[in-house]
């Protein structure tokens, strides 16, 4: 009788311990659940990273010229004009040649 009672008690304790482990794993096994819950309860306002970026650019108004059938920019601006598809030697020369110098004296020369 005592033996049967002990076995029954052990079985219940085992069930209880396993149930507890299950609950602990359910709650703490998924860490994201709390941050998700927090974000759901207190949603963050989205940050607009582009909000102030326009301050760094100049704006030009482009008008549509219906007679010429094209957009016209009345603001004068500097434009590098090129002709042909070829790139001249001076523009091909690698950018990697940039170096750092102080304001050391230049030397006059007639040698080019």
């Amino acid at each position, binding site marked *: 009788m005592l033996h049967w009672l002990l076995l029954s008690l052990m079985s219940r304790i085992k069930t209880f311990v396993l149930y507890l482990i299950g609950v602990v794993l359910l709650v703490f096994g998924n860490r994201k659940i709390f941050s998700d819950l927090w974000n759901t309860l207190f949603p963050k306002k989205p940050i607009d990273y582009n909000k102030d970026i326009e301050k760094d650019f100049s704006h030009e108004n482009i008008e549509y010229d219906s007679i010429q059938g094209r957009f016209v920019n009345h603001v004068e601006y*500097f434009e*590098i*004009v*090129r*002709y042909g598809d070829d790139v*001249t*030697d*001076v*523009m091909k*020369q690698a*950018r990697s*040649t*940039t*170096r*750092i*110098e*102080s*304001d*050391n*004296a*230049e*030397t*006059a*020369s*007639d*040698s*080019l």
Partner: protein
Amino acid sequence: MPKQPQTAYKIPVYLTQERRCFYANIKVKLPLSCSESLFEEVYGVMDVVDRYYNSYTRGSYIDQINENAGDWVEVDDYCIWLLEELKQFSALFDGVYDITAMPLLKLWGFYNKNQQITPSEIALKDVLQKVNYNQIEIKGNSVKIAKGQEIITGSFLKSFAVDLAIDFLRELGITDALINAGGSSMSVLNNEIHPCWKVNIPSVNEEKEQRQIQLANTSFSYSAMSNNYKLIQGEKHSHIINAITGNPSNIQQVVVVAKSCFESDVLATALYATGNEYEKYIPILEELNASGFVVDANGVETAFGNPLKEEV
């Protein structure tokens, strides 16, 4: 007692690039805060000038004028401006400086390494008939030179390109920069933090040390015979030729500081071309607010304009 912090000396630091353009090494120095991509734009400005106006560039306006000598050629406003300005400078120097001097340079063998004789008087007389800036005709946007004439842009074009590049930088708000076109022409921008750039002027006399001058928001040009000459039978002949006599100048050195690089380059070349008569033309440079000095064939130095600021 605690150690006192050492004084921090601020050394201006620049991004520097050097590229070949106009058959010269063009060096550009920009403040460290500038984007590296700005070099592309600065060299882009000079590249456009090289493409459109260089007499050595096939298809440029000047090349078209030379190729169609005797006929009218349509060019743009910049080309007209350049030619009109240059004609005025030629008139100021009584035709001694002349951009149609290309046939003279060819006669003296500057484009023929094998030529080892000085031109004969008859050949000189014949070629001099083709050298005359007055025969550059301008009507509206059309230009015509006489048959047999040829314009050479070597004495002014890279400096004109430097001016445009400097204007471009100035418009961007850059107040400290340098463009050095092969050592013969430079233009500088300065601000309160960096009040001047320094330039070494080689000495023509081995006994003397080189000089160092200071430039601030100005342009500088240098003409000499140290490296650029034609050696005929052991005698050096300068590449700058008096367009009236047809003979190379014997001046040793000319330094001109002026408001624009174009102006300083033309004035330095023109004064150099005058040879022994340089003193007669110095008042013209002074009237144009140019400063500098000349070292003549005998080594005599003559300064003009405001004294150049020199490093002691």
